[in-house]
């Protein structure tokens, strides 16, 4: 059909993906809600030990915890659709406000550790690919193995002991001094203590990703360096620099960028441990405290937020593939004839 131009299939594709994304979000909400029943009873942490059983039952009724699962879930979805996630059982503040106030801390930490992981990962990857067999490469490879196998918690505690307690160079906890950019974004990047506080958590959080990127770059580089066009480039007498960085590295970066992008989602989602160790006031630490307190509204909103992050990243990646890979468009266009 001639009326179905490429622009139209693109829109249809996006719409389809958005519908799928909404389904994913609903599924996450459903699974999360089903899990909350096993986290425990919020009432136990909300009231003092003097509260009578009758008063506990009354509070449970007021909060709607006695309603059937389907009704609780329906109510949650209906309210969440309007952006209302209720009020935190623990901190008595609106959940959306609470999460938005914690989000900048997590995003800054994730961004800085992502950049660190990318820069050092690519740097070390290139170096170890080019200088194989050299002792520095050997030790970097060994160190990376340790980095990938030690749990995040241990790395964080180790860094605190070395750099905060023994050397006293960097703070062991918190976010330092923060200032506001605009109305609600609190940043630690503009103050000296804020930047100093960011270093240890960023290393802790980014170490795994750095190791991953480094190994990926190294493997890709070794692959590319063996190809014919590199040999030709060398035969043409191009400088090592031009060959290694202009030709080899450039061709290894496409998968690396994809992986880094996808890992950003994980960095945000898995900052929980790092935030707990460093008392970083982000959404991950908020989530952990909420689980301990059975603060259902905050847990639900956090899981929805993380699901949203992954859904958006995947949507962007899919769209990029669609834009980059003409076969996707052709196949779908053909399928309709």
């Amino acid at each position: 059909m001639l009326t179905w131009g490429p622009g139209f299939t693109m829109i249809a594709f996006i719409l389809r993906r958005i519908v799928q994304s909404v389904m994913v979000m609903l599924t996450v909400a459903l699974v999360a809600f089903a899990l909350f029943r096993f986290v425990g009873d919020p009432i136990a942490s909300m009231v003092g030990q003097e509260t009578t059983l009758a008063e506990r039952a009354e509070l449970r009724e007021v909060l709607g915890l006695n309603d059937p699962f389907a009704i609780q879930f329906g109510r949650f979805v209906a309210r969440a659709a309007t952006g209302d996630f209720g009020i935190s059982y623990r901190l008595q503040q609106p959940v959306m406000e609470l999460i938005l106030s914690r989000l900048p801390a997590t995003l800054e930490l994730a961004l800085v550790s992502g950049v660190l992981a990318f820069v050092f990962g690519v740097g070390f990857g290139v170096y170890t690919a080019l200088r194989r067999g050299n002792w520095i490469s050997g030790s970097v490879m060994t160190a990376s193995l340790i980095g990938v196998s030690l749990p995040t918690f241990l790395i964080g505690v180790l860094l605190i002991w070395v750099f905060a307690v023994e050397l006293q160079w960097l703070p062991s906890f918190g976010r330092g001094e923060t200032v506001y950019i605009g109305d609600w974004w609190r940043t630690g990047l503009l103050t000296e203590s804020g930047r100093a506080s960011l270093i240890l958590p960023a290393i802790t959080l980014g170490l795994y990703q750095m190791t991953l990127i480094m190994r990926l770059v190294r493997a890709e580089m070794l692959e590319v360096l063996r190809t014919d066009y590199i040999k030709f480039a060398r035969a043409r007498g191009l400088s090592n620099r031009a060959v290694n960085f202009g030709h080899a590295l450039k061709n290894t970066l496409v998968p690396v960028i994809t992986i880094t992008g996808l890992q950003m989602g994980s960095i945000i989602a898995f900052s929980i441990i790092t935030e707990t160790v460093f008392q970083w006031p982000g959404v991950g630490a908020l989530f952990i405290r909420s689980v301990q307190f059975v603060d259902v509204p905050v847990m639900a909103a956090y899981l929805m937020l993380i699901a949203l992050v992954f859904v958006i990243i995947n949507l962007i990646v899919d769209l990029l593939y669609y834009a980059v890979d003409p076969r996707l468009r052709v196949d779908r266009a053909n399928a309709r004839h």
Partner: protein
Amino acid sequence: MLMTPILQKARTGLMMSAAAAALVLSGVAADAETIRWARVGDALTMDPHSQNEGPTHTLNHHIYETLVGRSLDGSLTPRLATDWGISEEDETVWVFTIREGVKFHDGSDMTVEDVVFSLDRARTPPSGMAALHAAVQEVTAVDDTTVHIRMSGPAPLYVQNLTNTFIMSKAWAEANGVEMAPNFAAGEEAHSVRNTNGTGPYMLVERDPEVRTVLQAFGDHWDDAPAVTEIIYTPISEAATRVAALLSGEVDIVQDVPVQDIARLEQTPGIRVMRGPENRNIFFSYDMASDSLRSSDADGNPFASPEVREAMSLAIDRNAIQQVVMRGESQPSAAPLPPFVNGWTEEMHAFGAPDLERARALMAEAGHADGFSVQLDCPNDRYLNDESICQALVGMMAQIGIRVDLNAQTRSLHFPLIENWETDFYLLGWGVPTFDSQYVFDFLVHTREGSYGAFNGSRYSNPELDAKIESLATMTDLEARDAIIAEIWDTVMEERIFLNVHNQVLAYAMRDGINLDVHPENQPRMTTVSFD
């Protein structure tokens, strides 16, 4: 100008607190002392009546004040009330003489109207303090310095319930729409959650929940100015990080010191550790009344047999738990209440060495020579080393043939088991905020009915004992009352309703040069800090 109260949202707090800090530094630089104080969790709210919870009260005690205070030895001290007692004409009326010349942080004077308003707010749901004031019928201001509290009957110990009930400003509450304690179901944040107006020795200048709370000394406070002029309160949830922050000099006082770090911190130069008994004892209890147990292979209910309960008390090795599990940081005791609580005796506290031979003989006598299996429910994040205590008990019970299957889980799953009578055998810790045995009896011994027996997981029910417990509430002759308390304890100990393990010991670690004593309710007051 220096003391102008600064009450604003946490969002604008930073700049304001910097300004306030600058003022203080320039104004009273000579004796300005800042204490950076860290503990595991933050106050849940700054509202004075919303939550009946330890860390919330601890922070609020610096900003708000109560009518009577609790000193380090557990006795009552005057605070906003200078004098109190039961009315001579009517034994159901408590008379409080209110301190004069007390100012709120916003500069207004505290009056008896504020006291009446606060007590009414505290005793009206959804206030978390309501249960402590259930017997109050009416609060009235008689004259400018006297408040009468009329109870539903004689209540000789009611004053003990007032040590965590704070006085707030009526005018401020009305101006900000917080005449009632905030309600969970309300769906919006109340002004009083992050803003305060108390009469306490410190004013809130910055509140960033779970990050940082800054308090500044209040110049118009009625009492002597404290040595600490500024408090920076930071929750640090991870134990290793909390200790590291103290060692690196980033905080001055750490309140919740992990048991395994106490000895090491004591040997660290520049750090000192203060210890003291906490108002909390840890004990096991069991279903004594059901016909059969839900998790046991035994016929009938072995815990119903006095011989089995005695055998268990002979098999537990409290000293081993103290040395191995608690690393020496506990007070082993057979008495199911802390030592400073009225009713405690040396006799209840004493226990002998484990006698396994006798214990096995008792098991055989009860018809359980081959033992039986049972599930032990245990929290793993509520008390000091709670799960390890339970693990230790598993081994000790195995020696007399009781095969214990340990179920350790988070507190929000554990406590409903006791509340719903879904556990055969469990660990519980209990503090006595009134410092009187009646509190223990009301919640743990009395038959579960109405406001009684909420934590009576043993299902124990003894109408005769219930009558005695109920009589305690209204007895004004304290000597006769103490005699009844002793009688009740005799029965409770004889029946072995509780298998007590120990009293918890608190430890605060701090920089050398700081003196802060351990508070039995774990509510340290920075006003009591002195410097060497």
